[in-house]
């Protein structure tokens, strides 16, 4: 992947760095060049800090043995926090979803990260997700849990995953809920799809 790069740089340390940046998500060839030349001009300490941060994140970040979120200590801060509500677990697809939900401040329970979603077209089945880990932690650690909130994305894969989880969890005597679905902030009714608009109507609230 060296198209768009200066041919004079082929194989040089700069080309290697540009190539490394280019592989990152959302970084095109131009941005990769800009970043590489920024590093080249920056003080050596800055480059060293970046390099160390990169190595450290790979060496010290592990998955929390309870919630499977990425963490530098096990159990993670959320699982170890005794002030949180231990009767409810919110199941999400990815670690970034934990960040998004925690930012709302409206949820004080525990999390569980599946690391994906059931998606046959991408070759991902239930056995590829952290579902067994969820069943095991409810059985062994978090016996106070009464409700599991499935916060998968409101698409086909997310729906399939949430219904599959409900089928596994209800026999354990748990209440299984999923996030409400409706119109996003700033939306336009005229352009809303039928499923979304239908659900918004079905789960309407008193004004």
């Amino acid at each position, binding site marked *: 992947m060296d198209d768009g790069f200066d041919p004079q740089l082929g194989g040089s340390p700069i080309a290697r760095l540009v190539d490394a940046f280019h592989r990152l998500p959302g970084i095109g060839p131009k941005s990769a060049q800009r970043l590489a030349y920024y590093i080249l001009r920056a003080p050596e300490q800055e480059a060293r800090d970046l390099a160390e941060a990169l190595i450290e994140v790979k060496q010290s970040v592990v998955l929390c043995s309870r919630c499977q979120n990425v963490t530098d200590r096990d159990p993670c801060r959320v699982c170890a926090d005794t002030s949180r509500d231990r009767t409810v677990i919110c199941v999400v697809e990815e670690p970034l979803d934990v960040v998004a939900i925690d930012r709302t401040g409206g949820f004080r329970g525990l999390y569980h990260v599946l690391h994906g979603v*059931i998606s*046959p*077209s991408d070759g991902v089945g239930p056995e590829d997700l952290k579902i067994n880990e969820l069943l095991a932690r409810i059985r062994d650690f978090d016996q106070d849990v009464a409700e599991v909130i499935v916060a998968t994305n409101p698409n*086909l894969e997310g729906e399939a995953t949430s219904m599959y989880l409900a089928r596994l969890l209800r026999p354990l005597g748990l209440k299984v809920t999923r996030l409400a679905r409706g119109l996003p902030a700033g939306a336009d009714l005229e352009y809303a799809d039928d499923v979304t608009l239908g659900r918004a109507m079905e789960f309407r609230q008193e004004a």
Partner: protein
Amino acid sequence: MPGRAPRVTKTEAIVLRYRRLGEADRIVTLLTPHRGKVDVVAKGVLRSRSRLAGHLEPLTLLEVVLAHGRSMDVVTQAQAVESFGPIHNDLDRLSAAMYFLELADRLTVEHAEAEAVYRLLHVALTRLARGDGQQVVSRTFELGLLEATGFRPELTVCLGCGQPVGADRASWSAVEGGVYCAACAAKRDDVFVIDPTVLRVLRAYQSQPYEEAGRIRLSDDLAARLEGVMHSVMHAVAERELRSARFVSASRRARVLAEAYEAEQGDEANEAGEVEASAEV
């Protein structure tokens, strides 16, 4: 390209799947009646205010306007016509629908006419949505797909010698897609004895009109065996593992477990009720 009107086409399509393209775009795979399977670009659909997003979900039948692009067409308008709502509320039907989409995807090639497959898929999804039995819908969809793509399984005469085979002693080859008589089966190593009831049901599904076939009552156990036989045929024809088929089976197993648990709970509740009743006496 300034000064030149973009060439556009309007078509009906069923969304099979999508994959991410860059920051907020998607490549959506559509099955269309006249242009077969096509990959198109949907721009900005990952943004929450996208006007296209909800309409371009898999398992949606839509009217779509495509502008011809250099390598791929670009979606300019999309309006969902049918989103098969009831399928989304039931795991068995949803997993079956995901399996149908994967089959339609695997058994078609890009830009090759696939009207028969499109019609079969539309009919099967409509039947699932209105609540027809998942087994009869799935099995007749599979048999119809096989027929439309030139893989019609031979269920009545031996693939080896051409003689009629009785259901009670038929052997089955998923790779060859049909039955063998005992004598021919003895010479092969890719066959196994097929359950006579499974074969009779498959023959009925293949030869009878859909409405007749739908009246056949299946136990959970028979349904599982029927599913196993047909999944192995589809697997052989698609020449790869069908993950959605495994998910259909996993969902069914989870349902059987959940139902067993509920029955148990019901029994316990009944017993508790009986104890209370006897205490009152």
